[in-house]
């Protein structure tokens, strides 16, 4: 699952992921993504932005961690603000990645979580 308020980012990540042979569900709003999760969807990894036009990625992460049925899903928070790594991890994210990023780097991180899962 990819969540970012910028469609250009979501689309380009989708494009790269598909190129790598991964399937992506795209979300532009955190509440939309949570709705889908509550209906039972279980992605291998959630990759989401921190600032989401009125929503804070860390709050969504805390929601996921607080929900027993979702808490095991690996979450990677991405942000253009580099100094926020620690606060992302504190909110329960498994990883943090600074924007812009190398796709190789990102893909290897994601694959790492899929493998261990």
């Amino acid at each position: 699952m990819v969540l970012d308020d910028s469609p250009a980012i979501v689309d380009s990540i989708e494009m790269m992921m598909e190129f790598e042979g991964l399937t992506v569900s795209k979300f532009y709003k955190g509440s939309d993504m949570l709705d889908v999760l509550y209906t039972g969807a279980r992605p291998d990894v959630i990759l989401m932005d921190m600032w989401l036009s009125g929503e804070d990625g860390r709050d969504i992460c805390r929601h996921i961690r607080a929900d027993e049925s979702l808490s095991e899903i690996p979450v990677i928070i991405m942000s253009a603000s580099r100094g926020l790594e620690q606060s992302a991890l504190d909110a329960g994210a498994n990883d943090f990645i600074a924007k812009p990023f190398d796709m190789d780097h990102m893909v290897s991180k994601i694959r790492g979580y899929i493998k261990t899962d």
Partner: protein
Amino acid sequence: MENFSTNNISHDSLLTLFSKAPVAMSLLLGDNFVISNANPQILELWGRDHSVIGKPLFEVLPEIKSQGFEEILEKVYKKGEIFNGNKWPVFLHKYGQYEEHFFNFIYAPVYNDDQAIIGVSIVATEVTDQIIYEKKLKESEYRFEDLIRQSEYSIAIYRSEELYIEFANDPMLKTWGKDASVIGKRLEDALPELEGQPFIGILKDIFRTGDTYTATEDMVELVVDGKLQSFYYNFSYKPLKNSEGKVYAIHNMAVNVTDEVVARKSIQESEKKYRDLADSMPQFVWTCDKYGRITYMNDSWYSYTGFSKQENPNEAIRKIIKPEVYPHILEIWEKSAKTGKPFEVEYEFQDPKKPDTYRWFLGRAVASFDDNGEIVQWIGTFTDIDDFKQLQKQKDDFLGIASHELKTPLTSLKLYAQFIEMKLQKQQDPKNAEVARRMNDQIDKLTELINDLLDVTKIQNGKIQLSESEFDFDRLVEEVITEQQMTARHKIIFHEHRIGMVTADRHRISQVMSNLISNAIKYSPDADEVFVSAALQNNRVRFSVKDLGIGIPQDKQEKVFEQYYRVSGSKEYTFPGLGLGLYISSEIIKRTGGKIYVHSVEGKGSEFSFEIPKIKI
């Protein structure tokens, strides 16, 4: 005499008269002036006894012969002229002393019955004591006058209510700008410019009141050197009174204090000028003594704070300064006070219009020293920089937001570039894939620039945070060198020295290393190598990067760590960069508890180093 004969007065009676008269008398007879009679008074006067009777005068008193008496007696004896001697000086051998005596005397011819001159009569009184007294008095008067004449004070005496100038010494004449010809004139005639000034009136009043008048730093206008000028005097008018207590003259004594008064007035004027200047400044201008006690605060301070001038300014400052920063400011001030080095610090004062808020001020002070290098006082200012601070904050916020926003399209742009590269590689098109890779590299460069801007913003806001961890320093150096080598034309030569584990922010330290290496490469366009070394001493790790590049002039070496500093001179425009890298590096190293420095020779190259503690203690 005729009466003597007609009345048949006895010879004895005449002799008695002669001998008992309170004047000295003698009768000289004949042309050699034989002393026929001499009363006891004249014998006393001569200092001789009765034995002189019957002897010629000049035999008895030979010393007077050469003193003109022979001629006088001859004249009286031969021409019958009476001679009057007044205060006549005579040197006499008297009682073993040869001294000057003074006499009043009359030499008169003595006739016989045939009216023929037969001798000379002498009547004399000694006036020596009187003459000596007069002389002494004269000398004393002269000495007194001389004293007054030579006095540095201006002295004059005005006689009678008409104020005739009886006396004026040279300083007084100089004061008036006149010569001695004014003496004897009336004061108001001698100095007509005094009309309309109070002095003549005051002097005339003293004849009535008998009171002394004194004045300090009174201004008087006098015509000196042909023009009316103002002078300042300390002076007194003292009445001189006769035995009946009546004022007959006034003694005027004066000291010219014009220079002192003018100098003081000029200092006062100058002080007022600078005070007005200071008061008109929008900044708060102040002075304090070497102990930091405020001695002056300008009007702007009082009108801004509303404090009264009676209130202790030091306490007033303490009242409105942000309490949390006060100890810190005090510490900086005490450091300056000890060294005499300029004091400069930014802090917040309460906004009197909105007591819950503070405004930013820049406090500065410089010391002034005496000839011995001791601090005399501090001159300081508080400048309201709140608007500037707000603008700076807006700028920083804007830069923060702008760089964050720029990264969003960059993120997708980078993904697309990578996608194209991979796609082309898959399609066996390495040439175009390389184009896409370079596109990706340039996106990385753009990202670095944006990151620098963000870092500066964070430093300015004090928001840069280091997340420390323990890491392998040697591995980090290797990683950074490998990464830099990938894009560098220069060979990066590493003199390896094992350091081991270090506690610091790994990411930030790697940023500093990359910055130093990329600078070394950038500023040595004509060289082929840069040299990296690491060393460990005690608990400190040193990392150095040396190049053989353009170097930095001595006077610019301190500035390279300042914000926005760029290579100066003709080559400036040829080197890329925002001038932020070394500033960010130095801030990171400072916050790590280390130091960063440079050794450089212009035209030969530079060596930049940083030192950080290996383990935080």
